[in-house]
């Protein structure tokens, strides 16, 4: 299961890369900040800080971004517990029991429980990744062009379909992303869609586009919007209470494990991730509980389920990212952008040839989780002030970071122009209810999908019946249909019912 030689190499790699450790605490703090301010999301933080990794090596770069990911996972729980406003879509279920606890005056305990659940959840997710990555990569090696094509389509379709938006809008958003990815040199070396501009020869720069779609579009949306924080009482946090909460969580190892393993498995499915994992784990915990009525009224078990699941889904989503080079959601899409920035292509070959780096990433992330325990306790003391930090202070910061960062990536005005243009497109899409994440994933995997499509068709001589001889392709296609079908049927049944939605945030 574990390649012992590579494991040792990974340990010495981590020991010899002090930069990898230096970037982790700032990453955690950035994640905690962005996660805990309602209105900002983890993907905004990861997108605007992605250009900062330009000057880092691959390992520190990824560890920095995953530190933001991990920190943001717990950061989102803070406003969920203190104000009943989930900081990110992955902490919706955290508020169900966390806020009632805070209303009873047990906010410090609730935050302590959330912290321990987040830390252990992250550990469970990465532990699963550590044990499975080798065997999964062996299996993935057998996938040829047709299989990879189906996998790419699967990834885009799932993100498009498993969303708040309607299915047709999701698919349209995904196709738009693939269309944008065709700008520039094609797989076969012809120029397309450059409008005669030499700046577009290399295509739309992916990372500025990512910053535009995730961060700038949200920025345009946030201006003028205000999250009303009605709770003006400044709550006192006592260390004893935090410890008490941490103890409460630690005394329920079975619930932590259940939430954690559910999150990891759900996280590995592209398009699902933390925002579904926390709700699913919460529902399971409630179902299996002896006292389901106490859920939603401040039962610590609900909090444990939600927080352990949303944290462990990070490790799960890394499985898909590393093994297939396919992002499962916004966070991993940014990580895939970082892979591209450092000329690394995820996939079985990467795992086989750089097993030590992959293990170093996993071990580094587990160490990160432990560090979160320390940083997080300190952060809880500040939490009361940070959740009330006004968005208007963060908007200019995000703006400056996205422009300077995109300028650093391209070295000219193409980066900032791309950020503004994709930001406006993304803003319009959000307004009309199109999922932005589907467009980004389409943009990221579009080139790969087109290449595999061309190769599949060359092998088969243009005969579609060719796939009948490829059992793995057929199995994957069946899987694709099976995973999409429930959502399609569900939406058909709902079709006639008018459902006005007023969700303050869309999972992005």
């Amino acid at each position: 299961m574990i390649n012992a030689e590579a494991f040792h190499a990974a340990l010495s790699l981590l020991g010899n890369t002090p930069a990898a450790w230096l970037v982790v605490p700032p990453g955690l703090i950035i994640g905690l900040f962005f996660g805990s301010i309602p209105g900002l999301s983890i993907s905004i933080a990861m997108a605007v800080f992605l250009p900062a990794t330009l000057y880092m090596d691959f390992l520190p770069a990824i560890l920095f971004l995953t530190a933001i990911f991990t920190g943001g996972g717990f950061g989102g729980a803070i406003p969920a517990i203190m104000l009943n406003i989930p900081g990110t879509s992955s902490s919706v279920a955290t508020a169900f029991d966390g806020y009632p606890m805070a209303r009873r005056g047990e906010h410090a305990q609730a935050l302590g429980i959330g912290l321990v659940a987040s830390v252990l959840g992250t550990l469970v997710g990465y532990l699963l990744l550590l044990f499975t990555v080798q065997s999964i990569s062996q299996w993935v090696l057998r996938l040829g062009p047709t299989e990879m094509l189906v996998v790419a389509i699967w990834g885009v379709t799932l993100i498009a379909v498993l969303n708040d938006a309607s299915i047709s809008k999701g698919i349209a958003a995904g196709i738009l992303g693939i269309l944008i990815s065709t700008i520039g040199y094609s797989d076969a070396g012809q120029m397309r869609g450059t409008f005669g501009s030499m700046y577009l020869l290399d295509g739309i720069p992916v990372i500025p586009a990512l910053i535009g779609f995730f961060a700038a579009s949200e920025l345009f949306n946030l201006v003028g919007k205000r999250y009303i924080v009605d709770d003006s009482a400044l709550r006192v946090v006592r260390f004893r209470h935090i410890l008490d909460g941490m103890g409460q969580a630690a005394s329920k190892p079975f619930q932590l494990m259940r939430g954690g393993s559910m999150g990891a498995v759900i996280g590995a499915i592209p398009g699902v991730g933390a925002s579904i994992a926390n709700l699913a784990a919460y529902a399971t915990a409630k179902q299996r509980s002896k006292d389901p009525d106490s859920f939603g009224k401040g039962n610590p078990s609900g909090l444990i389920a939600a927080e352990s699941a949303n944290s462990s889904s990070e490790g799960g989503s890394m499985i898909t990212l590393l093994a297939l080079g396919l992002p499962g959601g916004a966070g991993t899409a940014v990580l895939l952008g970082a892979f591209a920035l450092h000329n690394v292509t995820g996939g079985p070959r990467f795992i086989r040839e750089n097993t030590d780096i992959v293990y170093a990433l996993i071990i580094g992330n587990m160490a990160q989780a432990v560090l979160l325990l320390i940083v997080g306790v300190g952060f809880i003391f500040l939490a009361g002030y940070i959740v009330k930090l006004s968005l208007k202070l963060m908007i200019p910061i995000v703006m400056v970071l996205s422009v300077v960062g995109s300028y650093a990536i391209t070295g000219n005005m193409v980066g900032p122009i791309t950020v503004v243009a994709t930001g406006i497109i993304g803003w319009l899409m959000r307004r009309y209810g199109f999922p932005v994440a589907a467009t980004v994933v389409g943009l990221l995997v579009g080139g790969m999908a087109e290449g595999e499509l061309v190769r599949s068709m060359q092998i088969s001589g243009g005969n579609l019946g060719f796939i009948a001889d490829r059992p793995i392709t057929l199995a994957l296609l069946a899987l694709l249909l099976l995973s999409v079908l429930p959502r399609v049927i569900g939406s058909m049944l709902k079709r006639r019912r008018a459902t006005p939605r007023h969700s303050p945030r869309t999972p992005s």
Partner: protein
Amino acid sequence: MATRNLTLKVNHELFGGLLLIGIGAYAYYHGQQYAFGSLARMGPGFLPQVLSMVLCGIGGLLAVTSQLKPSSTVQLQWGQLLIVAASMALFALLLRPAGLFTAAFVGVVISSWADREITWPGRIALALVVAALASLIFIVGLGMNMPLWWG
């Protein structure tokens, strides 16, 4: 029941659908200059043309089904979008000639116009803090090759 309402229902779905048809039609028109090829030997125009046709189809579907839903006001707050987008563009343009600190200061002052509650002292203080922060992160921390001040 006898009188059917024939007025066009204006809502998000209709706009989204029309937008998609527009984008798809343009992409299809533009994609025609590249060779379509055949299934076995796909040209560079194959994927763009097929995808833009699908996009048009989905757009049409959305526009048609939008008529089953009630009208809703479509409000776009263009003003705020324009202020923030313009401040971003100006900031980027000033970056080289004026330096990071100056550009960030100007960018923040302009973008804060979108917020009606902020006072002038608050606006200046915010701009100074953000400009200092950005300079610290990118020039001192990351060693980015970029002027800090004018000239």
